[in-house]
């Protein structure tokens, strides 16, 4: 089963349950008492998921490691590499700075 099919199946099942609930109003007391809540639940769920997604992404952006140290070390190693390669007889294309 592809991921698309998995999603369609999952959403299909949820949709079927929701349809059943909103159409069983007449003979189900629970549905009668919470009809609006159930009717608008898909919109509520999408909204809550959107908030969840947004907060997760922003949290991860905020906590994304900035590797300052790695950049400093790399700059030093580039210098080291240039010096040692020159000693080994490597001729850089640019004139040595």
């Amino acid at each position: 089963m592809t991921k698309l099919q998995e999603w369609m199946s999952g959403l299909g099942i949820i949709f079927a349950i929701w349809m059943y609930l909103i159409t069983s109003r007449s003979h189900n007391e629970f549905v009668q008492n919470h009809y609006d809540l159930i009717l608008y639940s898909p919109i509520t769920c999408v909204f809550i998921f959107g908030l969840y997604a947004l907060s997760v992404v922003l949290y991860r952006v905020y906590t994304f490691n900035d590797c300052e140290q790695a950049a400093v070390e790399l700059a030093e190693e580039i210098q080291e590499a240039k010096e040692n390669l020159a000693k080994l007889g490597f001729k850089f294309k640019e004139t040595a700075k």
Partner: protein
Amino acid sequence: MSASGTNSKNKYSILLPTYNEVENLPIIIYLIVKYMSKSGYDHEIIVIDDGSPDGTLEAAKQLQNIYGKDKIVLRPREKKLGLGTAYIHGIQHATGNFIVIMDADLSHHPKAIADFIKKQQEKDYDVVSGTRYIGGGGVYGWDFKRKLVSRGANFLTQLLLRPGASDLTGSFRLYKKDVLETLIKSCVSKGYVFQMEMIIRARQLNYTIGEVPITFVDRLYGESKLGGTEIIQFVRALLYLFATT
């Protein structure tokens, strides 16, 4: 520390596809040799230059004279062809049983290769992927917008594809040679989304994937790319893989 016992039979072929990397190539090769010699793993570096006009190949030839033909292998091609074919072209003459792929622009640091190898040996993983998103991994030189796009794209991918790996668009990885060959043959996409498809196909074919945190230092020389075209390519690849795998 040196490799010993069963490890000594393993050889690691490091593939460096290049295009206009005349400044970076000597540095990256110097660093690979430095760190691989330090950790004692048998290795070779295969440079696949796609006809760079800036003299990358000439620089590679000089490096071959310095480090030897057994350490630096040159596999140039006439012109720029896809990344997948570059790997195939490189592998054809690889003598190692493991292949490391990395960018030659210094955004990937060769010191991580030893970590990849140790991780691979822990559970005999088929693939070890570098990740910027977990543990001590991270990036340097990215602004808020770049991080937001990266994290947003990653969140969406994890949600839709559940790939079993945290970094899909990274290209610093270690593969068993036969696994890499199989994966490349099963991939259809071109460009940088090719890396994403490789991991998804690996999951599809039930290969095991290990992960190692890496630091990604965005290009010190040259320009980094993230534009509208890349984003469209990414979305198309995501939807394609969502519908077909």
